[in-house]
Structure formats: structure tokens, C-alpha cells
């Protein structure tokens, strides 16, 4: 018999995972996220109008269902010019208030390396779900 977590409990788990101040950042190094990564594994983008995004717990909408899903309003990274060297963007990573890496994801291979210019826009829609059960 397979372990079963009811939807109501999944929602509680999501609240526990996301109930902290998280920061969404873009990284510039050619990194494929790996299990042993830390925040230091990722080089945050600088320059070009880049500003990291804060993801407060109050901004998450958590739906009790199967799977239970937490969603957040999309975050736009708009650029005013070329970013600092290496002037590339490969993906995003999320850290908590202590700087501990929470998760990371590389953008689709067809999109990287992305080299922003003035007017470029990267939109990341935060989403987290508890599924598989």
C-alpha cells in the first residue's frame, strides 16, 4: 500500500516550505543545478537594471487540491542595458533570508545563454506543487 498524504496536509506542507522571505535571483554562470549546490554555486546577475525579486509568504496563493499548488504573481526582470560580465543569464535561483539556497532552475536550453539588452524582459512565474501522490 502506498503512503497517502491528503490534500489538506499537502497545503500545510507547502505553507511550511514557503513561509519565509525568499528572494528570486537570476544567475549568470553556465550552471546546471545539481544536488550538492549551495548559493555560492550561482553567480547573481548584476548591472543592466537587474533587481532581484522578493517573494513574501503573503504573496503565495496555495490551493488545497491534488496536487496542492502554490502560485505567485509573475515577476518581471526588465533590463535597461547589457548586464555586467559575462553578460549572460542561464536561469534563476531562490534563497531564503539567511542566504541558503532553496531551489534553482536553468532556463530552457533554447533560451540560454540569454544576453539582455535595453528593453529585454525575463518573466518568471513562481510555482511550487506537492504532487506525485
Amino acid at each position, binding site marked *: *500500500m*502506498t*503512503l*497517502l*498524504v491528503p490534500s489538506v496536509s*499537502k497545503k500545510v*506542507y507547502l505553507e511550511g*516550505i514557503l513561509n519565509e522571505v525568499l528572494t528570486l535571483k537570476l544567475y549568470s554562470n553556465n550552471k546546471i543545478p545539481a544536488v550538492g549546490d549551495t548559493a555560492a554555486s550561482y553567480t547573481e546577475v548584476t548591472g543592466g*537594471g537587474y533587481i532581484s525579486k522578493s517573494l513574501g509568504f503573503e504573496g503565495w496563493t496555495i490551493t488545497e487540491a491534488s496536487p496542492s*499548488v*502554490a502560485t505567485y504573481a509573475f515577476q*518581471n526582470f*526588465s533590463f*535597461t542595458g547589457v548586464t555586467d560580465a559575462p553578460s549572460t*543569464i542561464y536561469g*534563476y535561483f531562490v534563497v531564503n533570508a539567511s542566504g541558503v539556497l532553496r531551489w534553482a*532552475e536553468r*532556463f*530552457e536550453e533554447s*533560451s540560454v545563454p*540569454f544576453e*539582455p539588452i*535595453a*528593453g*529585454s*524582459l*525575463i*518573466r*518568471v*512565474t*513562481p*510555482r*511550487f*506543487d*506537492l*504532487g*506525485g*501522490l
Partner: protein
Amino acid sequence: MTNGQGSRYGIPPQVANDAIDILSLYWTNRDLGPEIATIFFGASGLTPGQFVSIQLFPSGKARQEFIGPDGNISDTINIVNSGDDKTYDIAGGGSFTLPEGFWASQIRSVLAYDAGASPNATCWFVIQTGGFDPHNPGEFTVDATLDPPTDPALTEPVYDPELDQWVFDLSWTNQEPELGTLIEVQNSQIYQEGSVPIPDELYHERFTNEDPPDLEWIFRFYHYVYSPTRRISPPSDDLILTLGPTPPIDINHVMSGGLSIGGSATIFLLTDPSGIYKLVPGKTHDTIINRANEAGDAEEFDVKIPEPFAETGYL
């Protein structure tokens, strides 16, 4: 309420739906120094209590300003009937003067200027005459009916590098004067106010946004009066507008998300186990044959020998 720009424009102020004549409206020659607006009102229906605020929009200053009786910029100005000259400082060293005997006269006159403005600047002004009478604490009755705006439209958002903001405009045509009130426009993210309603006038409200704006915006128009409680009318129906072409999105990424909990913890129940123990030198486990599992098949399981190297007396 009246407003105007330059020396050519102005409409009669309104108090409780009664028009008040503007006898004349003068603006000084810019070459003579700071900009001065002089407005002479007729006396009909105007009392000091109804003349409650003056709002200037000097050019070169982004924010709206009220001149308070204490000489400081404030939210509003209340003028009482003292019968004496009154001078109110404007930021930048200007002054706002009511001539002696102003309130007792049959002529209502206001002199206002902004010394901070350049000689060629244009000074918008708004005179609020309705809403609250300090001599009669009761509020005026004003027509708070909100006439729906017509022909609303949004412009294409444009990035302004100096403001570091995306800028777009909402425009609409006002149908009725909405006497004695202002119109406030708001949506879920941006709050704007201060459009003076004039019939058949095309209005623009400029909105700025740090990020490229969403495609769809919901606007509500409010109708409010200046009063101690700043009473606001019920909002209009939601006005849903769609922006023009949006800035291109180079990467539109939705997080993969996903986290699985659990899995399966397999528990074997031996239905008919028996052991065949065959001691083999060097082997550290033995084999149990389950002669009939749940499916009716025989299975073999290796099990640990507790002490495989224990000495016996029989080998």
C-alpha cells in the same frame, strides 16, 4: 470649483450647483517676475466658508500643492472671515494675499503666484469652493452622481529611462461637470486622483509602473468632495481596459515546481516460511525459502546468520 491655465481659460466656480460669476481673470506679464494669477469673482452665493482651498500646479514641480494658512504646504487650506489681509507663503518665497476688506466686499479676488516658477512658466490653478463651510459645520449637499466616462482608452506603455518606469496613459471624456467634486481614478496597483471634471473635456491620467505593465487593467472612477471626512462616492462599475502592444517577453518561464512526498515502504509477510540451513564456509548469510507467497509462488530470501563464524564441535 474653477480651474484654468494661462490667461485665457477659466470656468465659473460652482457651489451647491449654483454658478458663481468670474468677473475677470488676469495673469501677469511673465517678464515682470513671478507668475501671478488674479481672479475676481462676483458675489453671488459665495461666502468665505465656501471658499475653502486653493491648489496650485506650478510648472517644474511634479506634485500638487496646497497652500496652508500656516504658510506651509499642506493637504488643504481653510480661509476664515477675519476681514483682514492675509498672506500665505508659497514654497519658494511667494505669497498668497487677500486684500483688506475682501470678505466684506462685493468682489471676491484672489491673488496667487509662485515665485519659484520661471518667468515663462505656466501655473495651473484649482480653486475649491464646495464641500465644507467652517462657519456651518454641516457639509454641503452636492450632486455625487458619477457620470460614467466615455471613450476610455489606454496608450501603449513606454519605458522612460529617466524615471526608470513604464509609462502609459488613460484617457477618457467627461460627460458632466460633477459639481464641487473631483474625480479619482484607481486600479488594483496604481492610485491616481485629482482630475477636475469639466463637461466634454478629454482627460488624461498618467500611470507609471516599475515593471512592464500587465495587459489588462481594471479602473474605477470615484467621485469625492473635499470635506472633513473626504467623503467618497460609491465607485463606478469596473472598467476593464487592455493595453496596446506590450513589450516583448524574451524569456517567459514558469517554474517547474513540484515536490513528491513519500513513496512505498514494502513490507513482506512470509505466509509459509521454512528454512533450509546449509552451512557453507565463508558464507555470511543463509537462505529461507517461502514455499507459498501471496501469489502462490515459492520465494527465496537471504537472511543473516547471527554469528557465522561461531565454532561448533561438529565440523
